[in-house]
């Protein structure tokens, strides 16, 4: 019984936090990113749209947001090794396919 109450409380807390952060984030997105978007090249924008990534989201962002969230930077691997590591991390870290591609782009550049 206590576990159920706790689960409900945790779920409500999560939803509340999701709403709070979502509200703050969407405000900051609308107010602070226009200059960045304007300065990006059309080609880069098209590439990001193809990858289903936000317009002001870079491969560098993908790496920093996902990889260093858990571990420190690792030595740069070669391209084929990177692809294997990325496939492994896509599963382990629940990356989306587009995030994995962006990270691969970052570490093989």
């Amino acid at each position, binding site marked *: 019984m206590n576990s159920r109450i706790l689960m409900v409380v945790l779920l409500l807390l999560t939803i509340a936090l999701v709403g709070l952060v979502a509200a703050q984030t969407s405000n900051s997105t609308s107010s602070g990113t226009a200059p960045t978007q304007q300065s990006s090249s059309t080609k880069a924008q098209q590439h990001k749209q193809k990858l289903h990534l936000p317009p002001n989201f870079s491969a560098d962002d993908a790496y920093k947001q996902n990889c260093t969230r858990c571990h420190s930077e690792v030595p740069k691997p070669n391209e084929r090794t990177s692809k294997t590591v990325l496939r492994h991390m896509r599963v382990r870290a629940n990356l989306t396919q*587009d995030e994995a591609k962006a990270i691969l782009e970052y570490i093989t550049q």
Partner: protein
Amino acid sequence: MIRRFTLISAVILLVAFLANAQDGPQYKQPEGGAPLLTGFVGLGTDFQPGQQQVLPAIAPIVLIPVGDKWLIESELELEGTYTHATNQPWDHEWEKGFEYAQVDYLANRYLTVVGGRFLTPFGIYNERLHPRWVRNLQSSPYITGLEMSDSNGGMLRGGFPVGNFVNINYATFFSAPVNNSWEGSTRAAGERLGFFFTRARLEIGTSFQRQLQDGHVNTVGADAIWQSNKLPLDVRFEYARNRFVGSGYWVEGAYRMRKVPFLKPFMQKSQAEVRFEQFFTPPVMGMASGDMELPDSNAKRVFAGWSYWIRPDVRTNFAYGRELIDSGDHNVWTVGLTYRFAFPLTGGSK
């Protein structure tokens, strides 16, 4: 039992293929990667009053990509414990076992189907932080003792963006009972659901697992990871509760010292870490904790540590901790060295 397991496996595969069939426009996948041998070698020490331990470990991981959508991966972990107690000779034992031996099928952009033996998706420590080259402090938090570490069965997992500001990630699993010292597991089912706010660099997750043998018992959990956008600071938190075994939490902060204006060559490769944790025993001991390595009474522990990377793949760590527990408050000193390696097994020289 076998029929039920086969049925569940069939359902999981069916879901995967249906999801694959419904996938939108297919992206051209990058060329397949090379098979890889990776993992770490580590040596740790743990000094407490009256007891000293040396803890060598090696954990080779083999990753074999097959085609565009499959990955076979396995980690064998060998952990030694050499213990010396006051007025006693050195004693030692080695734990051997497969951390995971799984087949992954990338069904579509948002779903991966996993079968075999895998790390149980509960909280953030077990799946993401437990390798010694990743963890900030040598000692595992108390509450990892009440979470299942490995499962044998099937798992569906993945992630998908919602708008431009949040990515949702999920994992749900079923585990069959296996009574084997190398790859044992409990009959259980569970899930973890995470929300990652990309701009805030904040992830919040909740976990649930239900043990389906020896009494049906629930374990619930919550976790969070936050990385500052302005400072090289990470904060991690995890909570878990099982009403028959206990509850607890840990919170950990890590500050990379690269912005410190003095001793730059040293500081740029250093990180300071602090962890505080508490464990609460249940009011009524409903189940024996067995080999869960949990404290016998309420306990709290604080650690302050320092990591230094000799090279990006070689990490040293030193930490001092103080444990406050009914059996006697005491100091804990740990020192560790880890080397993370990655070698292509074939065709990876390009």
